[in-house]
């Protein structure tokens, strides 16, 4: 639920209870106040009547309310002395409404010329159910008007208050550790958003430091490993030449040499990857992809012939890209290498150039690779333990360096890799 709606919900619930309780109290108070003022009026009436009775004795004969609002009955002294002024609510028939209506009645007693009388004075009362109904609807309207105003205020005014927040989120979403170097800065004076921005920038700074040290670590580690690896390989090669070595030991040494060579290879690839990511290749020139593909194929021709792999080329146009020549060679070479070495006996490779897209398809295992992880480091074919599992990661690194998309798809036994050079291409 959006924050706006959530706050609206909470406010509405609070308003509901606040207005509910408030209106009950208000209603009770209002009713009391009305009664009070009616009671005052009745008392005043009583005093006026008692004064009037002294001069106009006919009033004493008023036994029924009739058109008047009082009636007087003679009583004996003892009863009269026991009477206290009592105000009561009661119902009386009203001709105009043809219904029993609430009235306020004052029971009292007085003495006149030594005789005692009981007096009842009435005053019509507010119709409570009408009042209640009116009040209820007013309150309901108040509630809805309040909620509607909140929605309106939220949408028209408060939305603007949240603008820095949305901008901050958008900037964070677009932030790329490997590309963006400046801190995020959104125009706002709101302390909460400033705090959020500071926290985000602190996080970015930490991530950048971690990212940088990770990159440097890979490069330094691979670099430092080179000499010991060279010594290991060289010493083993010398050891294998030794005359005193028996054949069983020599076999072991040969196996260790193979392992050491794999480590050298792995290390080289890691170093290359680190160098690409650390932007150590950045001297772009115009490179023709068509000729680069042809040239790369010649490097693998012996292996291609040996595995009897058929090559078909469908170059619809020439693609020239603006790219660092080393990176271009690394990219194309790794793609072709991947297609060649993960191929099958008597397999095939298809190369397509169309628009600014290059597609390399190869026959291979009958199972699609997971496109999510195929470009990740150390994703390798379980059947091929000589592979470093870094070739496609290197391709991905080159593509990311130039922000060009590389993708993988599988189609009936064919594994295809597509690079869209649009961003750096000049199609001819």
């Amino acid at each position, binding site marked *: 639920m959006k924050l706006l709606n959530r706050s609206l919900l909470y406010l509405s619930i609070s308003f509901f209870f606040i207005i509910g309780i408030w209106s009950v109290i208000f209603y009770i108070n209002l009713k009391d106040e009305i009664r009070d003022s009616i009671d005052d009026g009745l008392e005043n009436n009583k005093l006026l009547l008692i004064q009037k009775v002294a001069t106009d004795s006919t009033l004493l004969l008023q036994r029924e309310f009739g058109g008047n609002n009082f009636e007087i009955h003679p009583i004996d002294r003892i009863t009269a002395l026991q009477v206290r002024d009592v105000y009561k609510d009661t119902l009386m028939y009203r001709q105009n409404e043809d219904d029993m209506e609430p009235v306020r009645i004052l029971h009292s007693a007085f003495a006149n010329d030594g005789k005692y009388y009981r007096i009842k004075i009435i005053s019509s009362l507010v119709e409570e159910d009408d009042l209640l109904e009116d009040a209820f609807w007013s309150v309901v309207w108040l509630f809805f008007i309040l909620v509607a105003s909140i929605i309106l205020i939220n949408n028209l005014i408060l939305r603007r208050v949240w603008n820095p927040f949305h901008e901050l989120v958008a900037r964070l979403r677009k932030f790329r550790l490997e590309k963006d170097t400046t801190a995020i800065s959104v125009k706002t004076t709101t302390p909460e958003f400033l705090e959020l921005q500071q926290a985000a920038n602190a996080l970015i700074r930490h991530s950048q430091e971690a990212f940088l040290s990770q990159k440097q670590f890979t490069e330094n580690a691979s*670099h430092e490993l*080179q*000499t*010991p*690896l*060279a*010594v290991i*390989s*060289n*010493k083993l*090669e*010398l050891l*294998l*030449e030794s005359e005193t070595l028996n*054949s069983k030991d*020599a*076999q072991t*040494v*040969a*196996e260790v*040499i*193979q392992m050491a*060579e794999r480590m*050298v*290879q792995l290390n*080289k690839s890691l*170093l290359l990857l680190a160098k690409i990511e650390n932007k150590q290749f950045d001297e772009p020139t115009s490179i023709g992809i068509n000729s680069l593909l042809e040239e*790369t194929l010649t*490097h*693998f021709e*012996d*292996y291609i*012939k*040996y*595995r009897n792999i058929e090559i078909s080329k469908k170059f619809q146009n020439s693609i020239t890209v603006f790219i660092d020549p080393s990176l271009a060679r690394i990219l194309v*070479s790794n793609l072709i*290498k991947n297609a060649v*070495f993960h191929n099958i006996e008597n397999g095939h490779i298809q190369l397509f150039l169309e628009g600014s897209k290059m597609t390399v398809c190869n026959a291979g295992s009958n199972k699609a690779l997971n496109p999510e992880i195929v470009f990740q480091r150390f994703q390798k074919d379980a059947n*091929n*333990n*000589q*592979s*470093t599992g870094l*070739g496609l990661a290197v391709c991905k690194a080159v593509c990311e360096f130039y922000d060009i998309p590389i993708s993988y798809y599988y189609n009936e036994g064919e594994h295809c890799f597509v690079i869209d050079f649009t961003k750096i291409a000049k199609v001819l």
Partner: protein
Amino acid sequence: MKILIVEDGKELRETLVNSLEKDHYLVETAEDFKSAFEKIGLYDYDCILLDIMLPGGSGLELLQDLKKNGKSENVIIISAKNSLDDKLVGLELGADDYLTKPFHIAELNARIKAVLRRKQQDGKDTLDVGNLLLDLNERMLYIAGETVRLNRKEFDILNYFLLNKNRLITKSALAEYVWGDHIDQADNFDFIYYQIKNLRKKLLDAQASIQIESVYGVGYKLLEP
């Protein structure tokens, strides 16, 4: 043949000494800038293996000094940094070759031989082993005076073997030399075997006095009886 190894890493230095002594070179070593500077000033070497990063200074400075004395053409730079800039500067200063660590011993042997050959044979670029004569300029092989036709790869392979006679050449070293860096992750080097097989057959047919022997599945060795 006198070779100077300028390398600060003790292990690598010793390995190189061991390997070069097998080929009967006279080997001297220097472990830092100062001692290298002294040795270069005092003696003449047929070949100098020069590390760039040295305690006390840069190998490139030594190279500059050598160039001043007209002695830089027999230097092979061995560097851990595969940096194009270093390479260009080094070659500009007259270094003969640039080798990136880690390298195969066979590769180093081949490069050293190339330096020495250029120095000695006055433009005559041939390799002479047993009854074989490999003409590197004409890219021709003569066995007992008879021409033997080789394809490009066979020629490169044989060349590499002759530069490393009686020494182990691992398959990956051979692949790197003949096919370049591209084949590095070949899931098997079986395709090399086919080239070797063809080459052996041609050598046998021409009654060459050398033979190529497999070494424990890891590589090959050219034997000169």
